[in-house]
């Protein structure tokens, strides 16, 4: 259902009464969104129907308790969730449809398209890092920095990181951390850097009851990220009080940038403050209540949730547990920390009312009206069933009271999250990997402010609207003009940082009340005065009317690169990278010697098996490193993702710095960037294919394919040299197709480029991944070939010297 705004413009201009017909067209909205002439250059789209607010079956008490949507399928378990500056939601942490711990896939969701399959874009294995149990923050240049994490399944390190630019939707590898960190907390700093604290080696067994001592598996020294430069240790901020093993204080420490520009934190029962200049320093301020206690049930530990709901004011709520396996009853307690005078040496801690339900693994989201929504969690440990808490609760900072909200349908505990959407609803998603939940789904909670009571029932409230703005890219202290809808009675303006949530916490979430003055067209809003109050980045700007109803949020940037203009079309994500039609240049650089086999990954990683049967790998911008054991052939998916044929004719997969046997009776192996692997039997030359990059020994025979040499473009596109040196292509379904002749070596890259070495040593290139026999001569000669992409060629000469051109 849609509402035609052009009709409304005329009506508004003439001041006539709204025709009944137009009212009906507005459909789900109680009052139609009248279009109004914009007076400022950035115009907000108020005319498009919001599918998430359409055709709702609104319960009678929605105006008091809010309401939940149904349960929507989600392509993967959303263990991590971020709101991007263009209004899309990015989730990751588990593979599509899967329940394993492997965070390489990305799921983009555009709330403006509803929540059916067309609203999702899924990139399986899009990241060449594993961001399971990582930490994320949006940098001021608009990139989402994801660091640490990883599982043992994917074989990636917990040092690795990636950045994703919402403008292109493409993930890219970024700088490695010094220390591997699993469960670190990352926070954007006032100067645009980011800090990561805490974390441990993945799956390290840690006892929360160990004495006060450091452990070599725990990271007690933070690291600071400078865009374009990478990470460095903040050695002066070493602390086991803040990031030590006892009480699991290393596990996603709760921390915020304070108004004084320091970092304030709560790590289970310890409260601390960190200075960020130079090499950093840290001090323990005092204890907070006690450690986990089954009798007093303090609101402490990684199972609690917390949010900065107002400038320098933090609500710390629920918890009383150390980890998802720890058996303890949950806390209902809630505490307000006021850190506004931290710079003057004062910290105020105020106990507020407890929640109606004790909860561990709940999530807290601050709403545009300043209240805090708590959803999900459990009354005991990470138990579902009767201990699951399905009802929402909303805390009002003005009264200190909690109001019980409507109940959802799904237990959302460990690995769940909540995220405020621009339309004022809250995405509540995830839970699982590990269980007890396996939530390949999400729900939407509609807070009471979206409704009003009318004759004993609830209907959608009329919402204030932002019509246009003078800019959506502001500086600190800058005033911006906001045109509001005629008749809006705005009493508050709210600024809420776009979220990046995982494990029941978002360190960057904060809400600020902005001061404003009324103008002829609406209001003149003053942005936060300094980056200590609002670290540079992206925020949802909302107006709130006298009834407490918020407008749709408009994403603005403060001291940061501009966000997408309201209504702009998001970039469509895609993998692999676009085809580069160019040929490699003539200039060659020698990069190695002694090769008997070479391979290249789409990311530029190169590997060789040498005459001593050693494998050496050369990552992009790295240097040669030798791997253990003896091999005679090697294939690359990407950095640290290798397959190799041993001198024992077994195929091995590189898994987390060790080799795991995945096949036998082999003499050559090939791999593509999508994780497909193929190998040739040593006896019989049959070609076998494995479509998943994992440790399973699950291969299928490529029908009717016997080969001397093989190369993979992707799953469903294998090129090989068969009898009489002909080049064939197989899609594994239809019979092989002849596409070339007289070849002795072959290479393929994920952009669809095929390169062969002819029997006379000349090099030929096929630009497109199809069944057409169309080859272009490339200058030079070679003995062996590998091609990371169309523009680069790795080759050897007859002496085994390796060159790149």
């Amino acid at each position: 259902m849609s509402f035609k705004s052009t009709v409304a413009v005329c009506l508004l201009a003439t001041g006539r009464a709204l025709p009944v017909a137009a009212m009906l067209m507005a459909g789900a909205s109680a009052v139609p969104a009248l279009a109004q002439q914009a007076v400022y250059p950035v115009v907000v789209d108020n005319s498009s129907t919001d599918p998430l607010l359409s055709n709702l079956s609104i319960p009678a008490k929605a105006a008091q308790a809010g309401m939940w949507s149904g349960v929507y399928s989600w392509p993967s378990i959303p263990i991590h969730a971020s709101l991007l500056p263009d209004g899309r939601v990015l989730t990751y942490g588990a593979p599509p449809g899967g329940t394993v711990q492997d965070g390489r896939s990305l799921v983009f969701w555009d709330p403006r398209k509803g929540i059916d399959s067309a609203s999702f874009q899924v990139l399986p294995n899009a990241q060449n890092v594993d961001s399971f149990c990582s930490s994320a923050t949006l940098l001021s240049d608009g990139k989402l920095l994801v660091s640490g994490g990883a599982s043992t399944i994917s074989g990636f390190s917990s040092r690795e990181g990636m950045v994703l630019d919402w403008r292109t939707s493409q993930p890219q590898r970024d700088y490695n951390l010094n220390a591997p960190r699993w469960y670190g907390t990352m926070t954007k700093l006032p100067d645009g850097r980011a800090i990561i604290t805490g974390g441990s080696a993945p799956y390290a067994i840690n006892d929360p009851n160990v004495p006060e001592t450091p452990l070599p598996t725990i990271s007690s020294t933070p690291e600071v990220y400078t865009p374009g430069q990478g990470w460095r240790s903040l050695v002066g901020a070493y602390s086991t009080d803040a990031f030590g093993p006892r009480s699991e204080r290393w596990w996603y420490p709760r921390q915020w940038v304070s108004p004084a520009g320091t970092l304030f934190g709560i790590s289970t029962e310890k409260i601390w403050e960190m200075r960020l200049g130079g090499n950093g320093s840290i001090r323990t301020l005092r204890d907070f209540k006690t450690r986990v206690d089954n009798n007093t049930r303090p609101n402490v530990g990684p199972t609690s949730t917390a949010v900065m709901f107002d400038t320098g004011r933090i609500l710390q709520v629920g918890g009383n547990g150390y980890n998802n396996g720890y058996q303890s009853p949950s806390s209902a307690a809630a505490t307000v920390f006021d850190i506004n005078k931290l710079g003057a040496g004062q910290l105020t801690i105020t106990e507020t009312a407890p929640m109606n339900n004790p909860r561990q693994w709940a999530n807290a989201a601050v709403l545009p009206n300043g209240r805090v929504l708590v959803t999900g969690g459990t009354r005991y440990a990470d138990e579902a069933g009767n201990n699951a808490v399905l009802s929402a609760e909303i805390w009002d900072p003005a009264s200190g009271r909690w109001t019980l909200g409507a109940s959802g349908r799904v237990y959302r505990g460990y690995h769940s999250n909540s995220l405020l959407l621009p339309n004022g609803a809250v995405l509540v998603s995830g839970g699982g990997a590990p269980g007890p939940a396996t939530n390949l789904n999400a729900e939407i909670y509609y807070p009471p402010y979206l409704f009003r009571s009318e004759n004993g029932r609830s209907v959608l409230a009329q919402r204030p609207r932002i019509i246009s703005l003078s800019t959506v890219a502001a500086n600190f202290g800058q005033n911006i003009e906001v045109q509001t809808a005629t008749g809006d009675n705005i009493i508050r303006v709210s600024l809420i940082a776009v979220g990046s949530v995982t494990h029941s916490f978002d360190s960057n979430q904060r809400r600020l009340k902005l001061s404003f003055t009324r103008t002829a067209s609406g209001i003149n809003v003053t942005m936060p005065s300094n980056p200590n109050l609002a670290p540079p980045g992206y925020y949802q700007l909302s107006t709130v009317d006298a009834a407490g109803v918020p407008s749709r949020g408009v994403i603005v940037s403060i001291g940061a690169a501009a966000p997408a203009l309201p209504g702009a079309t998001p970039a469509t994500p895609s993998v692999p990278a676009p085809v580069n039609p160019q040929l490699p240049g003539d200039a060659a650089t020698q990069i190695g010697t002694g090769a008997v086999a070479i391979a290249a990954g789409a990311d530029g990683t190169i590997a060789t098996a040498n005459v001593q049967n050693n494998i050496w790998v050369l990552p992009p911008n790295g240097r040669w490193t030798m791997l253990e054991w003896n091999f005679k052939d090697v294939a690359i998916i990407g950095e640290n993702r290798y397959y190799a044929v041993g001198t024992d004719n077994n195929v091995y997969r590189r898994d987390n710095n060790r080799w795991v046997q995945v096949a036998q009776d082999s003499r050559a192996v090939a791999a593509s960037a999508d994780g497909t692997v193929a190998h040739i039997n040593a006896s019989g030359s049959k070609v076998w294919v494995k479509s998943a990059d994992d440790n399973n020994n699950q291969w299928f025979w490529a029908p009717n394919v016997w080969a001397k040499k093989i190369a993979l473009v992707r799953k469903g596109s294998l090129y090989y040299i068969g009898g009489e040196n002909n080049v064939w292509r197989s899609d594994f379904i239809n019979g092989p197709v002849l596409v070339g002749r007289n070849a002795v070596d072959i290479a393929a890259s994920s952009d669809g480029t095929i390169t062969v070495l002819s029997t006379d040593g000349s090099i030929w290139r096929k630009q497109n991944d199809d069944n057409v026999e169309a080859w272009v001569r490339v200058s030079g000669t070679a003995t062996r070939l590998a091609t990371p992409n169309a523009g680069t060629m790795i080759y050897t000469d007859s002496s085994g010297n390796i060159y790149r051109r």
Partner: protein
Amino acid sequence: MHRVAKKLLGNLLTIAITIALAAPVGAAPVWSGADPMRTILKGLIDQNGRPVNDGRFAGRYVLVNFIFTGCGTTCPTQVAELAQFERKLPPVIRNKLTILSISVDPGNDKPQRLKAYAKAFGVTSKSWTFATGRPDHVMRVVKTFAAMRPGKAGFDFHSTEVRLFDSRHRMIQRYSGAPLASQQIRNDLEALMEMSR
């Protein structure tokens, strides 16, 4: 609390604690615990067969890694890189640094073999200790560092990480050792030096 205020706030707990904090400090916190290096080194002997006591590390920065002389992959590369790294350090840092390479194969790596191994890499510095010991002692150290993990067919893998301890022997950072994160280690050593001035 005033009765009227109490009434307004109903049954809420309204005890606000305002804590006057000490003036912010720039110095690192005072360390009062026992020297953690003492526990780490208990029972180890060096390449000369002498007990590795914590006295030789007193007040010094320590880089710790795990090797074995039969290792044909990362160990020789890492030891060579560490040797080069140490040589390139400014004297003011090098004079405060000790490297401790602990063998994960104490059954084979007796002191004499470690001494020959060190010599093969040109390591003559007294500030580089190659340590071995009774297997139970060594395995305790290995377990403390989570420096081994099981591999296939009983073949275990040892950690290639390099760990930096400050002069109070707190583990400050863990680094990639293959390849060696030379620049990051040097940055952190310089930072520690700067803080100690």
